[in-house]
Structure formats: structure tokens, C-alpha cells
């Protein structure tokens, strides 16, 4: 099976399982006491945020390896990972407000996760714009690698700034702390969702990578 077909298959399975996550979250997981049904977006929101960030680390990592090995496959992977990361970041930035409105009455709140993801989103946009602005393939790969590495190193600082900001400016109570303290079935749903998003990441990246290969194959590289 070609790479593109594999990618599509994985993505479809992932989407199917995502629907299953939803069903499980809505029907089979207890409603959270304080935040009500709206809290269920959490199962979608947090894994997406985790992968939005993981994708950036992988972009940076691919960049480091590219600068040493100069292998175009690494660059293609970085591009695919960046686009996948952008999608996940967008998911976080849309589900966040959808969740926030019923809970806090406002569409946007500067909570840690949303803010970090917003910065991450800007990073991705910049990365993709830079890629789009350079015609020469080798130069594009090199420059994207440089930017990707810087982006990867920025992520800890984003977290640090947001953390410092929040500890000094207490926000309304956010999500309960992460997975470990969730009761049994909620934790299971959450882990299931994380697995699904991992699958989706792999599916997206595989498809996008295959697309990049296709674009190059017939008559040599072009912008």
C-alpha cells in the first residue's frame, strides 16, 4: 500500500476512533460536578494541545538532524509535522473558547494552556510563511530547520512566561490538574483520547509527507 493510502487509512481509523471517544465521553463518562457537561471538551482539548506541542518538538528535532545530515526526508517530515501541529493548535484554540463560554461567560481567557497554544500557533504560522517565501528547496530546508530549532527552544520559555504570569495574576480556577487525579473512567476516556490523537498525528503526517513526495517526483523540485 502506498504511503498516501496508509496515511489516509490511519487518519480514517483515527477519526472513527475520535467519534468513539466522543460517544464514550458523552454517554459513558460521568459528568463532572463543578463544570458540568461542558467539561467534556477537555477530552478533545488537552490531547490536541499536547500534540500541538509535541509536533513542534519534532519539527525542531528534525531540523537539528537535517542540518547535520542534509536529508530531504527530514525536511519533508518537518513540514508535515508543522502542518499537523498547526491543525492541532487550531483545534485547541477553537475548542477552548467553546468550552470557556459556558464556564466563565467569556470566549477567551488567558489561561495557561490557551495562551501557550496561541504563542505556539504564531510560531507555526511564521514557520509555514517562511517556508512559503523561499523558492530554492535546499535553502528552504536549511532556513526552516534554523527556525524550527529556535521554535523548539522557545517552547520552554513560553511555558515559563505563562506560568510566571499566572502565579502572579491568579485566574479563575481552570481545569483540575492533569490526568493522574482524574477518577477511573474519566482517566480512561482521557487516555483513550490521547491515543486517538497520537494516531491522528501519525495519520496526518504520513499523508502530508506522501503529498510532499508526490509533488516532487515527476519533474524535479519546484517552488
Amino acid at each position, binding site marked *: 500500500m502506498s504511503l498516501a493510502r496508509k496515511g489516509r487509512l490511519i487518519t480514517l481509523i483515527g477519526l472513527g476512533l475520535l467519534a468513539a471517544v466522543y460517544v464514550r465521553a458523552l454517554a459513558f463518562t460521568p459528568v463532572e460536578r463543578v463544570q458540568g457537561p461542558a467539561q467534556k471538551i477537555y477530552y478533545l482539548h488537552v490531547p490536541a494541545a499536547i500534540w500541538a506541542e509535541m509536533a513542534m518538538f519534532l519539527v525542531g528535532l528534525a531540523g537539528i538532524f537535517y*542540518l547535520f545530515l542534509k536529508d530531504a526526508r527530514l525536511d519533508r517530515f518537518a513540514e508535515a509535522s508543522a502542518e499537523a501541529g498547526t491543525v492541532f493548535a487550531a483545534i485547541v484554540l477553537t475548542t477552548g473558547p467553546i468550552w470557556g463560554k459556558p464556564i466563565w461567560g467569556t470566549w477567551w481567557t488567558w489561561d495557561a494552556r490557551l495562551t501557550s497554544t496561541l*504563542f*505556539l500557533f*504564531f*510560531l507555526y*504560522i*511564521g514557520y509555514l*510563511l*517562511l517556508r512559503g*517565501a*523561499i523558492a530554492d528547496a535546499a535553502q528552504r530546508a*536549511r*532556513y526552516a*530547520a*534554523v*527556525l524550527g*530549532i*529556535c*521554535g523548539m*527552544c*522557545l517552547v520552554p*520559555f*513560553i511555558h*515559563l*512566561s505563562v506560568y*510566571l*504570569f499566572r502565579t*502572579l495574576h491568579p485566574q479563575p480556577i481552570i481545569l483540575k490538574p492533569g490526568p493522574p487525579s482524574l477518577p477511573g473512567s474519566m482517566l480512561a476516556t482521557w487516555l483513550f483520547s490521547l491515543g486517538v490523537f497520537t494516531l491522528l498525528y501519525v495519520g496526518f503526517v504520513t499523508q502530508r509527507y506522501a503529498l510532499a513526495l508526490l509533488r516532487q517526483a515527476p519533474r524535479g523540485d519546484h517552488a
Partner: protein
Amino acid sequence: MGDWLSQAWTVARKDLLLEFRTRTAIVSALVFTALVLTVFNFGRDPTAVPTIDLAPTILWVTFTFAAMLAMNRAFQLELENDALEGLLASPLSRTSLYWGKLLANLVFVAVVEVVGLPLFVLFFDVPVAPVLGPLIAVIALATVGFVAVGTLFSALVIRTRFAELLLVVLLLPFLLPPLIGAVQVTARLLGGRPLSESAGWLRLLAAYDIAFVTLATLLFPFTVEE
């Protein structure tokens, strides 16, 4: 080795000499600074929000935008007559080239800040005198961070179509941590709080500087090799 430093300084001196000759960028940056500070002053309602709350943000937004005007020209001026190729063919090390550009940019931004700060104090009537020392230190700390990244990125965008715009877009997420830190510390200083309260932010700024100056130095050669 002192050699790379002296070579870096040779490049920086040439940049500053060129800038002094043409003066376009520095004048634009200074005019921009004065303009923005003036507009902010007229744009606010003094009864609604106390100046002191907004002042740090206004100061830093002004500084960063003026800095971006500066950083754009750093490598642009090497495109004329393809001087960049001449530089790369010479024994100048890539690292010295980066540091030369960084130094020139820092001087440029420092000039803007030296003019901007008094204007700021004047327009916004903020009590800067008791905290001048720490304030200058914070300004320096934050400036080094984003100028280091900006200098690297300006090399990435030189031959692209909308170079100035792309530089701003690329730089934006990298500006946020030092900017937030700088605004927070400035606000605290102007609010009369002791510097020790801002220890966390100061550590952030210092860590950012060390991390990104190192990273930019290491990555720069990849932006000019062919």
C-alpha cells in the same frame, strides 16, 4: 581568541559608519518612537486608567517596534553590490559576521532607547529617578534577547519578497517571553516594588538571553552557507 571579536567589531564599525552616513533608519526609528509615545499619550483618558498601569506596556511596545526597524537593515545593506558574497569570500568567520551585526544592532537599538526613555518619562510623568539603575539593567537584559533573535532572523528573510513584514511575523512569538518579562519588571519597578520581587522574571530574561544568543551564534552559519 580576541581576533574574532576584533573582526566582529570591524563589521560593526562599518555598519555604524554606513548608518551614520545615510541616517535613514535611525531617524525613522527615532521619529517613530516619538510619534508612538505622543499618540499613546493623546489616546488615553487619564481619568479612566492610571498612566502608571499602561506605561510599561507602551514603553516596551515602542521599543520593540523601533528595534525591528533597526534589525531589518542589518543584512539588507549587504545586498547592495552583493557585499555579502565578498564578506563570505573573505577570511571573516561566520560567527564574527553574526556578532558584528549583533553589536551594530544593539548600538542602534540602544540609541533609540536612550532617546526614547527620557521622552517616555517626560510624556508620561513616571517616577523613574529612584529606579533608574535597575530599569536600565532590565532594558539592557530584555533588549539583548530579542535583538539576538532578530539579527538571526533578519538573515533568514533578506531575499524574500516581503522581508520586513516576514521578519515581524517570525519574530513575534520570540518577542513575547522577553517582552512580558520586561513589562512585568518595569511595572514593578515603577510601582516602587523592590527588585527582589521580580527575581523570577529576571531569571527568565537572563536565561532567555543566554539560550538564544548561544543558539543564534550556533545557527547563524547555516543561514549564509550555500
